């Protein structure tokens, strides 16, 4: 049986977690930013009309 090469396994799982975790975080932060901007612009539009 060959060596286990745990360092390669750990790095593979770490890289995957970073890439997919980072992608998920980016999507969530984007959503939060968009919601905030939409709420703000809706307020501005209401103020202009009134």
């Amino acid at each position: 049986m060959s060596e286990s090469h745990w360092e390669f396994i750990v790095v593979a799982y770490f890289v995957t977690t970073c890439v997919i975790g980072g992608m998920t975080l980016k999507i969530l932060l984007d959503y939060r930013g968009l919601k905030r901007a939409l709420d703000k612009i809706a307020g501005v539009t209401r103020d202009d009309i009134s």
Partner: protein
Amino acid sequence: MPNIANPTIFLSLVRRVLPWTAALTTILLIGGLYLTFFVGPPDYQQGETVKIMYLHVPAAWLSLFIYIVMSVAALGTLVWRHPLADAAQKAAAPLGAAFTFVCLATGSLWGKPMWGTWWVWDARLTSVLVLFLIYLALIALWEAIEEPGRAARAAAIMTLVGAVNLPIIKFSVDWWNTLHQPASVFRIGGPAIAMSMLLPLLIMTLAATFLFITLHLMSIRNEILRRRLRRLTILAAEQRDALAYIMPEPV
């Protein structure tokens, strides 16, 4: 069936579906990782290094699957002019790039101890690298063209042209002599992997697929909100101009 072409109906559908897909992803991921690390046996040749397979194969599957989803969305944009098709296509590209990067990175990390090299320019590895570059080019194209309609049509055409790479990736290991092994899961005659390894692999693949569905729905939702914001910004600017015209500021 609700008309999901309507963005408002689609958003309410996403709100209802997302908790379920996220929960299913979490359950499948926990189950898949448990089977990978505590049940799945080491390979008789590769030892524990085979555990990289449980990341590499799902990522490879998604890199192709996401491109197929984008190709269908591209047809939706060009042929059926579905209002959400270009949003679905745009939202999928970064996810496709991310999973293809994971496929390349984990393949390299698996290749070094098994083949003795990080990279070879064989047909399978090179064609997947080309797929990664196509994803990046599509993201750049979306960013480069300001008018969303034109960007969507250009990206749709490029996506359909790039789809020629999919059969090359799939059959590269049959058409050319490659260091990469031939297909061992999706092949005529059934999988060539022992059930004790196939089960965690299938569960991890299913988890990755549901993860993509979850992230894709979230990204489409963001894209719809981004367009709404763009529209409202233009509207607000027009309203300001109109008010300034009716009630000019005193000099």
